C-alpha cells in the first residue's frame, strides 16, 4: 500500500509499505477514504515530540471503509463506512469506564501520562496512522462509529479530532451565559472552539491570531471579533482594554507547542527542543483572563517542561482545565448540532491534497502558504 512515511525533521515521503495485519482479535483493518493533517502533526513533522521514529506513518484524523475484522469483533463488518476517533481506547479500564477515553490505560505501553493516538509517535503508543491507504484500528468494537448516511465525508473526518477538540475546549471553559471568551489561535481547533462558545451561551467571542486569512475565517465562520496580535505592542494590555480592564471570563489556548509572539520561547522550544512547547499563547491566556477565570488548554504540548507563568495563575485564582479530547463522547451531541445546521465543519477546509503529494501538503500547512487553514489528504485521488 502507499503510505506517508516520516524520514526525519521536516522530511516525509510516500512509500510502499505492507498492508497492516490483524494483530489482536479486536482489530479491524480500515481502507482510508479521507484523512487530514492536524496542526499537532506539525509538532511531529518538526521533530518536537520525543520518540518519533523514522518510518512511522502519521495521521490521526481519518475515515474509511472496513476491509477486514478480527475474530473477536462483533459490532463492525467488512464494508462498513466508519469514522475513527483519534484516541485508541479499550472502553473498560478505570479511565475509559468514566468517559476519559483519551486517558486509556490499556493501549500505550510507552507512557502512562497520555493515552493512545494513531500515528502520533511512540510516546503515544507506536501506532501507525491514517495518512495511508490502510490502517490498523485496535478495539474496533469500541472506537469507530458508522458514519450516518446524511453526513458528508468532509464533515465526518473533521469530527475525528478538530471539531470534537474545539467543542470540548469550549466545554472545559465552563462558559455561562454572557461570558467573554477569548480564543488564542484561529486554526481549525480555535475556529471550532470559538463557534462552540456561542452554543454554550457566550456573550462575546474574541479570536486572536497573526494570520489575516484565518482571522477573516474567524469573523465569517465563527461570528467572532478578531484581533491581530502583531498590531499591538502588548496583546494582554489590549485585551484588558477590550474587556473594560476586567479580562476575559474564559481563555482558550488553541495554539500549543509552536506558538509565535515571543522569539525566545519559540526558539527554545520549536527550534532547540529545550521545552515541551512554546507557551506564549498559554501565558497570554493566564495574563489575559480575569481573576477567578478559567483557562482551557487545547493546544498540544510535548511531555517536557515548559516556561509557564504558574505564579500568575496561582495569584489570580485561575481554574486551569485541559485534556486530550475524548472524541467519541462528543459525537452524539455534535451529530445533532451538525444535523440542525448549527455547525458545518467542512467550511474550514481549504486544501484537498492527493496522498502522493503529501510532502508538499505538509510544507504548505507548516509554512502557512496559500491561505491554508485545513488540508485534507485523499489516498486514492486517481
Amino acid at each position: 500500500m502507499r503510505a506517508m512515511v516520516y524520514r526525519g525533521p521536516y522530511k516525509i515521503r510516500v512509500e510502499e509499505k505492507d498492508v497492516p495485519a490483524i494483530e489482536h482479535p479486536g482489530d479491524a483493518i480500515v481502507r482510508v477514504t479521507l484523512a487530514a493533517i492536524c496542526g499537532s502533526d506539525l509538532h511531529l513533522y518538526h521533530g518536537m515530540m520525543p520518540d518519533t521514529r523514522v518510518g512511522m506513518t502519521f495521521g490521526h484524523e481519518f475515515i474509511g471503509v472496513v476491509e477486514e475484522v478480527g475474530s473477536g469483533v462483533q459490532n463492525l463488518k467488512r464494508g462498513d463506512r466508519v469514522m475513527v476517533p483519534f484516541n485508541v481506547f479499550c472502553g473498560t479500564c478505570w479511565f475509559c469506564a468514566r468517559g476519559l477515553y483519551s486517558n486509556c490505560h490499556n493501549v500505550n505501553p510507552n507512557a502512562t501520562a497520555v493515552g493512545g493516538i494513531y500515528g502520533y509517535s511512540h510516546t503515544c503508543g507506536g501506532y501507525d496512522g491514517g495518512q495511508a491507504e490502510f490502517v490498523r484500528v485496535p478495539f474496533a468494537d469500541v472506537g469507530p462509529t458508522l458514519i450516518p448516511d446524511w453526513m458528508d465525508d468532509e464533515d465526518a473526518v473533521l469530527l475525528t479530532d478538530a471539531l470534537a477538540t474545539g467543542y470540548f475546549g469550549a466545554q472545559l471553559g465552563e462558559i455561562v451565559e454572557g461570558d467573554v471568551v477569548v480564543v488564542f489561535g484561529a486554526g481549525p481547533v480555535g475556529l471550532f472552539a470559538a463557534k462552540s462558545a456561542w452554543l454554550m451561551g457566550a456573550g462575546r467571542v474574541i479570536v486572536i491570531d497573526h494570520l489575516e486569512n484565518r482571522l477573516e475565517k474567524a469573523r465569517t465562520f465563527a461570528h467572532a471579533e478578531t484581533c491581530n496580535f502583531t498590531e499591538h505592542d502588548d496583546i494582554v494590555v489590549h485585551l484588558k482594554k477590550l474587556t473594560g480592564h476586567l479580562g476575559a471570563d474564559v481563555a482558550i489556548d488553541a495554539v500549543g507547542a509552536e506558538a509565535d509572539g515571543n522569539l525566545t520561547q519559540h526558539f527554545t522550544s520549536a527550534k532547540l527542543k529545550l521545552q515541551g512547547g512554546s507557551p506564549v499563547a498559554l501565558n497570554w491566556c493566564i495574563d489575559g483572563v480575569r481573576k477567578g477565570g478559567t483557562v482551557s488548554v487545547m493546544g498540544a504540548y510535548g511531555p517536557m517542561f515548559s516556561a509557564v507563568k504558574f505564579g500568575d495563575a496561582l495569584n489570580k485564582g485561575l481554574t486551569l482545565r485541559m485534556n486530550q479530547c475524548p472524541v467519541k463522547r462528543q459525537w452524539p451531541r455534535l451529530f445533532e448540532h451538525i444535523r440542525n445546521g448549527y455547525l458545518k465543519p467542512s467550511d474550514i477546509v481549504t486544501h484537498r491534497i492527493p496522498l502522493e503529494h503529501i510532502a508538499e501538503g505538509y510544507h504548505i500547512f507548516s509554512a502557512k502558504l496559500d491561505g491554508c487553514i485545513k488540508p485534507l489528504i485523499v489516498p486514492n485521488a486517481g
Partner: protein
Amino acid sequence: MTYTSERPPIAESSDSLRARIPGWGADLDPKDRPSVPKLQWQEDKTGAHWEFPERQPEKWPRERSIEHAFLTPVFGTSCPPKGLSGALRKYSYRKYSEGRAAHWLLLLAADRVDAWESHLRSFATLRPDNPITETGVLSEFTRHGFSSRVGKKRADVKHHLVDPVIVAGPWVLAAGLAYSAVRKVVRWRRR
C-alpha cells in the same frame, strides 16, 4: 465597571445573539454538554464486551514505561527499535520514568540519531533520501511562497529563514566532511 461590583456591559443581548448566531445557547445548560461533569460512568462501555482485553502477542521485547505495572494488552507495532537509536531508546525506557527529564532528552537524542542512521542507510538503497522532494519545499514556487509572507504582518516570518538552515545545514556539513575525506584519501593514495 471593573473597579466597582458592576460587570462591564456586553454590547449585545442574549436575544440578539440568539437571532444572529445559529445555535446560540443550544448547550447553555451544562447537562447538555457531553463532558460535564468530567467523570461519568459509561454504562455501555462504548461497545466493549470484556472486563480486561485479551493480550496482543508480543513479537519482540516491547519497550515500555517503568511506570506501568506490565505491558499494556494492546500496543502499536510500528518501527521496532534498531541500531544505535534503538539502543538509546531501550535504555531510556528501562532506566528512567516519565517524570525524569533524562528520559525525554534521551528519546529526543535517539530521534536525531535515528534520522541520520536512516539517511545513511538510504544511500545504500535505490531510493536515497532527497531533501528537496521530502521537504516539499518546491511548493514555495507553486503555492505563493512569496506573496503568502510579504506584507502580511505574520509573526513567524522572521524565523522562517532559520528552517532551511536547520534542515539543510547538517546535509551541507556532511557533504563538506565527505568531500574533505575523499580528497584526503585521493591525495594520500597519490603520494
